């Protein structure tokens, strides 16, 4: 069999078994094992690849950022941030819809996972929004769309996986993700204001009320400062920043705000232990899949096709990749997509002379969008389930919101200077700048 046929066979087996109900990790491994039988590759080395896929120190950050989100949610600390969001913008038209978006921006700075965000918002604000007359489809669509910001605003698990597998600065990706994250947030607020239900109009919070809400949320809001401050000062790696944030929650936030929660802690630790293994075994399996794809020269073939269509124009190449990832993101989860397609991304990044952080931000924004597109829009699936609405209804209500994501992606492609402004100023080396030998500061090519 030719390499092309083997790649088609491997992809077909993965999708066929996956959609039949085999867990993603096992469907990926099954595809690789069957394909390997037609090549000289030994299956023992495939098992070695499974192992190599997760033997990456940067991936240690994943459980810590998951744990931060889980602890904050389970200890019921997040409600204080909801109260603050309500005090800030609850009086606007579509008040609760605005609160969902603002809270998601705050929460995105603490947790790197959309799942935690969807769970919190569906449980807390979802029922209240229903009472105020918001349609269940709109609620699910908005919560799912807002939760995607967790993958853009640092710390982002997608950025960690992208950086760890693509050898790109994770700090740079964190900072680069701020612009699309804020753009999506502002876009959702504008959409809710002009096109969403008006909800119940509340009075504007008084200054003392706002002050009380701010004091209540002050402790959790220190977490983004710890995480980004530690990384930017160069004192912590992203993994260490994650563990320091966990310690801060365990030693400061929970004892001061919800001491009774400590009884639940052992069970929560065991649950988080299980929770982190699920994406990571998928990373291991995707790594074996990506390795086999590279062995069959798949990246070279695909990047050859893309280059034949787009030439060496960086923006055209990024547009082609966006189209590819919008399609891919419709069918498979973001993490396996990043790992499987990383060799192709790297190939094209080098050949078109694109800054790896810029490419990473564009790809991550596109994959975040994939969380609300059918048939495999994980965030929308979860939000629809939690709010008790049919997935098709939630999907129809999310269609107008796609415009916000298209705008954010296009902005990232066409305005690299704006996207890379933060990394360039705070982590210059992450975007290819180097120290000026004759004067203070950096030279950025």
């Amino acid at each position, binding site marked *: 069999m030719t390499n092309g046929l083997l790649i088609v066979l491997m992809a077909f087996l993965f*999708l066929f*078994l*996956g*959609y*039949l*109900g*085999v*867990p*993603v*990790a*096992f*469907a990926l*491994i*099954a595809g690789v*094992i069957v394909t390997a039988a037609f090549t000289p590759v*030994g*299956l*023992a*080395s*495939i*098992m*070695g690849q*499974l*192992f190599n896929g*997760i*033997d990456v*120190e940067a*991936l*240690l950050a994943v*459980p*810590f950022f998951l*744990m931060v989100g889980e602890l904050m949610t389970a200890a019921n600390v997040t409600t204080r941030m909801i109260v603050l969001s309500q005090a800030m913008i609850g009086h606007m038209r579509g008040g609760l819809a605005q609160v969902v978006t603002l809270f998601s921006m705050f929460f995105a700075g603490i947790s790197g996972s959309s799942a935690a965000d969807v769970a919190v918002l569906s449980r807390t604000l979802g029922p209240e929004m229903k009472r105020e007359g918001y349609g269940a489809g709109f609620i699910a669509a908005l919560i799912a769309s807002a939760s995607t910001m967790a993958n853009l605003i640092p710390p982002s698990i997608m950025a960690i996986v992208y950086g760890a597998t693509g050898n790109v600065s994770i700090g740079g990706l964190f900072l680069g993700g701020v612009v699309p994250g804020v753009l999506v947030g502002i876009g959702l607020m504008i959409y809710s204001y002009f096109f969403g239900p008006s909800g119940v109009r509340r009075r504007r919070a008084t200054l003392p009320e706002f002050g009380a809400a701010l004091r209540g949320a002050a402790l959790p809001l220190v977490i983004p400062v710890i995480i980004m401050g530690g990384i930017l000062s160069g004192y*912590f790696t992203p*993994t*260490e920043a994650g*563990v*320091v944030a*966990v*310690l801060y929650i365990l030693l400061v936030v929970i004892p001061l705000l919800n001491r009774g929660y400590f009884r639940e802690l*052992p069970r929560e*630790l*065991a*649950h*988080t*232990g*299980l929770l*982190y*293994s*699920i*994406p*990571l*075994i*998928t990373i*291991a399996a995707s790594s074996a899949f990506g390795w086999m794809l590279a062995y069959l020269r798949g990246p070279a073939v695909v990047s050859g096709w893309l280059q034949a269509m787009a030439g060496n124009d960086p923006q055209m190449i990024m547009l082609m990749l966006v189209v590819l990832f919008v399609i891919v993101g419709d*069918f*498979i*989860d973001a993490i396996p997509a990043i790992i499987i397609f990383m060799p192709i991304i790297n190939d094209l990044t080098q050949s078109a002379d694109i800054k790896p952080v810029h490419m990473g931000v564009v790809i991550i924004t596109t994959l975040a969008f994939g969380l609300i597109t059918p*048939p*495999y829009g994980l965030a929308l699936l979860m939000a629809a389930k939690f709010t008790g609405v049919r997935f098709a209804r939630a999907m129809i209500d999310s269609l107008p919101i796609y415009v916000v994501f298209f705008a954010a992606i296009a902005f990232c492609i066409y305005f690299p200077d704006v996207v890379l402004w933060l990394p360039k100023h705070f982590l210059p080396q992450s975007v290819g700048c180097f120290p000026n030998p004759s004067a203070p500061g950096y030279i950025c090519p």
Partner: protein
Amino acid sequence: MVLCGIALSGFTVTVVCDIVTRALGTPWLWLQEVTMTCFVYGVFAGTAAATRRNDHLYLALIAESMSGGKRMAIETFSRLVVLAVAGCMAYFGFINFLSGFHTFRMPSMTPLASFYAAVPLCGVLVALFTVEQLVNGWQHGFEDQE
């Protein structure tokens, strides 16, 4: 699941110790090895636990919308695929484990086999849990396992 919690607590403690010892100017280099060992074993133990609890990531759960014989056939087939993959993980993972006795981790010089053992162990556990699910499913129906 308890093992996952222990592994998570284990590498949380070692990362903290790593930061503290580095801050004190006397870093313990072997801590990173312990951290990665806890991390990798935690992932593979969690994989087995997630198999038992049906907690993995799924592309779609077509079978959930079915009932009767069709559902039985699809659920059985998907679990047989998992069983076959688990068997490969156990057997070929064991071969990979044996090859790991010739390479060593720095700085402790521990054979990599101690690390590689996680894959075949995971394969055995996943196979056992899958057989358990198959037997339960055939006896009581797969709907009860949701």
